[in-house]
């Protein structure tokens, strides 16, 4: 799959807002989606990634380069992932989980979804509705009943940080 010359092959990725990124093939094939394209010989020119915007793709490429520079040491990879995700806000994490899913990168998918879960853990019902765009389809009576049933789960909930 890589060029026979032994020199590192570079791929060009294009985001859905037409930004171009070049990345070493050895790092890019962490994405099974990209690896399949390379193996099928579709990676001749520019690889269009229609579901990822430039900002998110830049972040994903930073991750690809960072993690592929670490030798096979699960501890070190884990601490790199933790550090990489530590300063990301919810919106960025949500974009990244969508990108990781589209690019079929299971290790990033796992790490980002765990990070989102960590952010969500102590959040309110209203925060989850707003952040995930989930419509409250309970009638007021039903909502009161389901909240009463789960009353014990409301202790220790953080104050909303999104308004």
């Amino acid at each position: 799959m890589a060029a026979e010359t032994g020199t590192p092959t570079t791929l060009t990725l294009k985001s859905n807002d037409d930004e171009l990124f070049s990345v070493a093939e050895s790092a890019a094939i962490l994405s099974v989606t990209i690896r399949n394209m390379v193996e099928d010989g579709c990676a001749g020119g520019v690889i269009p990634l229609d579901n990822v915007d430039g900002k998110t793709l830049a972040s994903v490429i930073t991750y690809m380069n960072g993690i592929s520079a670490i030798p096979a040491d699960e501890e070190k990879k884990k601490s790199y992932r933790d550090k990489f995700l530590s300063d990301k806000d919810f919106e960025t994490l949500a974009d990244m989980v969508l990108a990781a899913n589209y690019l079929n990168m299971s290790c990033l998918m796992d790490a980002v979804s765990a990070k989102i879960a960590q952010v969500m853990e102590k959040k309110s019902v209203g925060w989850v509705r707003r952040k995930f765009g989930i419509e409250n389809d309970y009638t007021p009576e039903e909502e009161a009943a389901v909240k009463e049933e789960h009353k014990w789960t409301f202790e220790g909930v953080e104050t909303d940080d999104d308004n």
Partner: protein
Amino acid sequence: MEKNLPEEIMEEILYKLPVKSLSRFKCVSKSLNSLISDKDFIKHHLKKSITDDEDLSDMTNHKLITRFKHDQPPTFFRHVSCSLHKQPIIKSDFNENMVFTIMGSCNGLLLVAAGANLPYLWNPTTKKYKKIDLPLGFYEEEVQLGHDDQVNIFSPPRRYDYVYGLGYDESNDDYKIVCNKVSPWNRNPNLSRMNHTLMYSSKTNSWKKIENSPKSLCLPGKFVAGRLHWLCSMDGFDIICLNLTEEKYEIVGGPQSFTNNAEFKVVKLEELGGYLSLTYMNGRADVDVWVMTEYGKRESWSKVWTLSNFVSAPADRVNGRPIPFLWRKNGDIAVAFGSEIVVYNGKNVVSRSPLDIQLVAKVRCYVYVESLVSPFGSGASA
């Protein structure tokens, strides 16, 4: 800015949340509620909660539950559960006015018996519980039999023993309770007249009569590998087990090198993190823990921990009797002593964490995993 995530990604995130958060998010919407209540979601979440706690020094989903003597009112025991290793806390009371005994633990459900052996299925994490009604006549029989039994006219007032077990029949996705009722003076295994065994299915919410065990049972059964196990003879160390799917009894041999070793006075059968285990107490001096490292292979029994390798004082001088409660394939074992949990890797102490209660030696401890499993059966939405 809102982010609509596809359901399969949402599920990936939800699997990683604790039960308390998931229970709260049932209030977000009907669709999220039905996703979190889905039986496949519950199973997957449970599996993940178990595998995430593989490292005994860093567990978040496993809790230890026991009774402890509460200051007020005096002489009253309450149940507490404590996190293992992460800020031990007193967590929940099942029913403040009821004294009950824990009889089994399986996938986050506890089998408890209150007062006169009335069984309940209880999920201490979601706080849901269901009273399991025994078939009509299961207690009355006690009185009726008393009248026409001519053999024991001079016996003291009759009292039956009820031996319980809780387990999961994976192929039928069914939580099952076994209840063996036996009269105390009828422990001779050849006499089966006074011996009744019933099995409860949470799927059908009903009891049925099953075959009696070929050997007499005592103490609550331990659930490992789809089977309930009882230690049936103190000198031979034979273990009898009931396969919950086939409803057949089998014998599991104990460690061969310990058969008929009279030195060990007290033998306890335990389930340690999914493994069958025997704890031998050598009088008051030492404690050995054996584990069947490959289920069903008698030669796989291995001695995994010995008290005297770590503590020079005899067992009765140690601060709290050692209670092993989890074992891992890598050799790590977690042992509770009084008010402390110690994790050993076979050779050394790996970690120590204080409990904020004093474990009472005579009161059984159970480990449960925090899960969404419903005591109302797998089809129920509650």
